[in-house]
């Protein structure tokens, strides 16, 4: 059914048609923002405890606390004896909606385990961080790290994580450290736990 909506033309009053009263109201709004922020900036500069002037964070220097429930880059867990927990069952590879996990299985020498991952590769550029691999894993071998958010790189290859990288305690290894560059910000798991407790 077609409905007709009549749009009424807004008639401006004589007072509004002189422009200046309405322009003045606009100026009051912007001036309020200007002076509020200006006073807070100046107040901070001279050491008063004013409110934070703006919501903007100066990102690389200034970081917002990461929510404890944040789950980011993947990590492979180890058994107590130091071998990977992963049994190369391909559950995560199957569950992955982006098909970004590539596992090559090999026969395990350990009598209790049939297979182990010869290679376990994950393409972060394809990953959508849905966490289905973590849910699918029967061995709790793959997890996603919390507290680490800056996944940046200069080439595609840097986002291609192999088994050994994911097996490291990767909370101790930032992405750039893996590339051999230190970016100065080393977040330890202890720090992360302390941060998580604060929240």
């Amino acid at each position: 059914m077609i409905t007709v909506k009549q749009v009424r033309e807004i008639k401006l009053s004589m007072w509004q048609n002189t422009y200046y009263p309405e322009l003045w109201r606009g100026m009051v709004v912007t001036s309020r923002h200007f002076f509020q922020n200006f006073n807070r900036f100046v107040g901070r500069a001279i050491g008063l405890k004013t409110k934070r002037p703006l919501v903007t964070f100066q990102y690389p220097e200034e970081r917002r606390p990461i929510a404890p429930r944040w789950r980011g880059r993947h990590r492979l867990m180890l058994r107590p004896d130091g071998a990977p927990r992963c049994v190369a069952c391909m559950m995560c590879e199957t569950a992955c909606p982006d098909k970004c996990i590539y596992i090559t299985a090999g026969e395990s020498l350990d009598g209790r385990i049939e297979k182990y991952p010869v290679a376990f590769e994950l393409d972060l550029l394809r990953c959508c961080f849905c966490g289905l691999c973590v849910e699918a894993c029967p061995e709790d071998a793959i997890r996603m790290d919390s507290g680490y958010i800056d996944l940046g790189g200069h080439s595609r290859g840097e986002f291609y994580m192999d088994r050994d990288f994911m097996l490291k305690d990767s909370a101790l290894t930032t992405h750039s450290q893996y590339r051999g560059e230190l970016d100065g910000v080393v977040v330890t798991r202890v720090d992360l736990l302390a941060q998580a407790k604060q929240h």
Partner: protein
Amino acid sequence: MAPQSQLTSACKPPHLYRLTNRMFVDLGIIIGKIAFVLINILNGAGILTWVERKQSALISDRIGANRASILGIKLLGLVNSLADAMKLIFKEDFVPPKGLRVVHFLAPIFALGPVFLTMAVIPFGPPVDLFGRHIKLQILDLDIGVLFILAFGSIAVYGAMLAGWASNSKYALLGGMRASAQMISYEIILGLSLIGPILAFGTMEPGAMVNAQNEYLWGWIPMWGVIVQPIAFLLFLPAAMAETKRAPFDMPEGESEIIGFATEYSGMRWGMFFLGEFAEIVVLAGVMTAIFFGGYHIPFLFDAVEKTGQAGFHFPWGMYIPLGEWTVIIMRMLAFGAKLAILMWLQMQIRWTFPRFRYDQLMRVSWKEMMPVALVNIAITGLVVLWLNK
């Protein structure tokens, strides 16, 4: 030395003046005044690029450009202005191959030059007695100063028009036409709105206009232009902002969406249009200060000449705060600077508050709304002046 030189100059016709020390001092004073004004306008224009960024940022709750740094020194983002200048200087300066090379070169000069000339007639401080001379702090003491302002304001039209014409691009040409149509329309309002103050103060000389604003209605209301001629001010401000092609009247440029007259300009030549725009903010604030906001005068502050020997504040309720001669002069120059700063802030605030006009609205506001109001204002002012002088 002085009496003798006066004697010789009295005996000879003026064109036979010998080069005396006195002449060099005169020349030095003039050059000094020009340098002072030019340096202040250019610095002001440079700093205004920073002010514009920061002010717009604060209005919209942002931080604003602050990343450029020299060895870690950021100066709250002031270094960004330097980086801008560097970028503009080292960018390729492209001239359209089939354009008019000479005109293309001249257009930015036409846009920038008159802006500086306009400031010449604005008194930026009270007269000073120095080196045995009575120096007016004004580069050019013209009897028809207001006409001078309008005349050089209208030369800026050529800048936009020639830039469009010389670019050999139909878009730039249309942009130039649009710009010149707008500027000519608003020039009329500019002229008509200034007739009110001219009638009210009875002079066209900016210096005399400024002094007329240190008189008081009924002894206590300062006769500032904005108080005597409020309607003229409300017409002058938008007309002047349209003349300087800044938002909400920035269709001539329309940098981000429509193509304007400066399309075929790049590098520092485009930078000259840009610099002219910012210099115009300073100059416009100067003109408004001189004509509408009492120039360098502070209400109730008089110098020794105005109140025979009693410099200082003379309040209407009889209070008198004596001040030294030089204190008054410095306070007045600072007052001029402060008024300039406030008016520049106002222009920036307007630029970042109001959305752009549509072109037909722009023309309608100018011809059908502002012009009749300006004419009525002139008629009423004329009648009142006649009645008062009866």
